[in-house]
């Protein structure tokens, strides 16, 4: 491929003499502003007491009632369930925006590569296993829906990159269902506990563990599907 640089798109981008950022005055003002931000934030950080209890003690105190043993999972899915629910909704909205912007680009992957196929056979089952392990771990150790969902979503990306496509049967509503499952189950359970007189998203301590695991499993599936679909970059 001789002399692509002169005819290719990036060549023109370079050659078209992009305005080289803001002018000197604007740059000076920007630097002054940022210096103020730097000094302000640094003094704020340094002026804080070097030891602060934070909310750790409160979380530890209420941990037995949360249904899980790992404080971060307890905060995510019980104490601050609203955040997590809305965060799942944000993920879903981002995907909605991506899908409404553009159809998925046609896949021009060169067809099956034997190396990649072998790699997939080794890696994909292991990654799904690790995702399940992380999901289960979330109850008592670092891990949980987000980490498991990210690993599972990365599995989807790997499979997509090596030319695997979703079968037609799963392409339509089953995919949409998987994308929605996390938000749907989360809010359903949150609403269901209100029948017993509890406020939204407060689980009864006796069944909290099981409910959290169910929500986390659904959220894992949704996060994984959303991340993989976001990588695809368009409506399939």
């Amino acid at each position: 491929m001789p002399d692509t640089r002169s005819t290719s798109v990036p060549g023109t981008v370079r050659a078209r003499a992009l305005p080289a950022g803001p002018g000197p005055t604007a740059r000076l003002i920007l630097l002054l502003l940022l210096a103020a931000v730097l000094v302000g934030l640094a003094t704020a950080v340094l002026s804080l007491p070097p030891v602060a209890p934070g909310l750790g003690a409160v979380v530890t105190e209420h941990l037995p009632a949360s249904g899980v043993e790992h404080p971060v999972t307890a905060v995510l899915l019980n104490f601050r369930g609203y955040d997590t629910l809305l965060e799942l909704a944000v993920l879903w909205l981002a995907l909605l925006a991506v899908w409404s912007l553009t159809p998925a680009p046609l896949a021009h992957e060169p067809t099956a590569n034997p190396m990649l196929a072998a790699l997939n056979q080794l890696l994909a089952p292991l990654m799904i296993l690790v995702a399940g392990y992380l999901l289960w771990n979330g109850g008592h150790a670092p891990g949980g829906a987000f980490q498991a969902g990210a690993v599972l979503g990365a599995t989807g990306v790997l499979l997509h990159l090596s030319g695997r496509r979703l079968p037609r049967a799963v392409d339509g509503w089953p995919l949409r269902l998987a994308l929605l499952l996390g938000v749907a189950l989360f809010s359903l359970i949150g609403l269901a506990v209100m029948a017993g007189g509890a406020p939204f998203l407060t689980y009864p301590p006796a069944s909290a563990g099981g409910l959290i695991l169910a929500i986390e499993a659904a959220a894992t599936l949704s996060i994984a599907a959303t991340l993989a679909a976001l990588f695809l970059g368009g409506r399939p």
Partner: protein
Amino acid sequence: MSSLYLALALFLLLTLVAGLWRVGRGPTAADRMLAAQLFGTTAVAILLLLAEAMDSPGLRDVALVFALLAAITVVAFTRRAWQPERLPTSEPERLAERAGGAA
């Protein structure tokens, strides 16, 4: 024992800094990418050492995830962002590569 683990982690971190040189220099894109992959491997070792030194077993899971997922970036690179023509391979190798890709 903890000090030994920390010292080893520090040493590995220094080798990582040395590897950064290749990212900055690497004549081809593949050189840069492989240097980043090398960082992934080093990071696995550092995380395992830290798991021992800081007595925090959760970090072993982090190392596990790193080891598993390091492949994805390089697969994305070879499938999407790599132009074999730039590589200093010989002509027959390149033809074989193309034939393999098209088959």
